């Protein structure tokens, strides 16, 4: 049994060496947790991290295959199973919070996806895109069947973009700074206050509007908490 799991540790390292983007499994898990927290706390849908998700899935299936071969009641297997459960929880919580946001903002998400340029990274994974489109179509059909077709003809169309509220980018978020940033402009709350700039020191924590730091979240310079 110990051979099975030790082998596994070795093969993971080899696998990583052959990849272009070298990342240890531990770093991969850290990346996933980062993405999870960011997605949880940001008011808007963030860029999809399908690469990370795929790699983590791969690791999990790999480890589960190994565990299949282990006899029951082994102490080590229990630890491994616990780790798998924890990672699976983070992964599904991450995907779930993305789906919730898609359901909440679907017309805007699709609109952003449509207006995105050729080379820009996609906001949604292919599966999420299909989900959003289907959700859109179903909501529309439902609205039509339940209410719209009984309306006078001139009121039978509905603009989804206007009907569904936009994500509120002005909400406040808590964040921790990972790379030092200078001259972040803080907009005033009221008209009689003046705008001012702050420097974000590495490791410090702040409370401010999401709009101001949204680019820093996607670049990974700050972490939402």
């Amino acid at each position, binding site marked *: 049994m*110990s051979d099975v*799991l*030790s082998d*596994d*540790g070795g093969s*993971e390292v080899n696998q990583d060496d052959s990849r272009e983007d070298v990342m240890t*499994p*531990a770093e*991969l*898990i850290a990346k996933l*947790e980062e993405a999870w927290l960011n997605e*949880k*706390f940001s008011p808007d849908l963030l860029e999809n991290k399908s690469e990370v998700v795929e790699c983590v899935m791969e*690791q*999990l299936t790999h*480890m589960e295959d190994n565990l299949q071969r282990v006899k*029951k*009641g*082994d*102490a*080590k*297997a*229990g*630890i*491994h199973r*616990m*780790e*798998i459960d*924890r*990672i699976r*929880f983070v992964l599904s*919580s991450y995907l779930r919070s993305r789906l919730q946001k898609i359901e909440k903002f679907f017309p805007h998400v699709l609109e952003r996806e449509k207006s995105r340029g050729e080379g820009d990274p996609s906001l949604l994974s292919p599966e999420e895109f299909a989900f959003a489109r289907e959700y859109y179509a179903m909501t529309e059909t439902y609205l039509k069947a339940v209410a719209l077709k009984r309306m006078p003809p001139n009121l039978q169309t509905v603009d989804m973009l206007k009907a569904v*509220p936009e994500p*509120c980018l*002005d*909400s*406040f*978020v*808590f964040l921790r700074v990972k790379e030092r940033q200078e001259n972040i402009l*803080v*907009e*005033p*709350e*009221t*008209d009689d*206050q003046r705008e001012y700039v*702050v420097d974000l020191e590495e490791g*410090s*924590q*702040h*409370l*401010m*509007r999401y709009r101001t730091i949204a680019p820093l979240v996607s670049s990974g310079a700050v972490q939402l*908490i």
Partner: protein
Amino acid sequence: MDPSEVEFLAEKEVVKIIPNFSLDKVYLIGGDLGPFNPGLPVGCPRVAGSEPKTETEVSGLFLLHGWMLVSTVHADKLEEMRDLERKEDAFTPVPSPYYMELTKLLLNYASDNIPKADEIRTLVKDIWDTRVAKLRLSADSFISQMEAHAKLDNLTLMEINTIRSFLLDSLNCMYKLRSNLQPGSSKGQFTGLLIHKNLGRLGFGLPHGPFVTQKTFLGD
């Protein structure tokens, strides 16, 4: 965020243990664990011993009872911290970003193995109370001065979590109320019900809690 999710994150924190069993190195996806030798201290994530389930699922149970935990924080050090926390206006650094959760997890599962467990529990609770009182007061002044930015160094995730939804929702609603006042603004689209609910919440129990002992401000 649910408090149990904060605890979930805290379970990753490495604590030092002295095992009374031996086990080879375990190669986990998130890094290696062990090897464990009886009597030799070793660092290990808190999680590995936190969930004893059934007799057959040995590992959790086995590890939990097999471990003799070494508390890294000592009672006198904590006392110093508590006094400093009471003296300072700003938040002082804490022993661990998950100090409250770790204390709870460790003391609940292994209080027999930690010397002065009760004393530690009281001290940590004191520190927590002082800090949360400061936090409430800061949140109050943050709102009343209509600030747009605050620095919150040394604040832990659990502490932020205690006020997160309340503070953020209030701030958002106040923002919408204010932008509604400005002519030509299209941002304020929400119902009277929401306004009503929020005003009710704003006046509720923020500044004058029983813990408030001193005037403080967020960060510096």
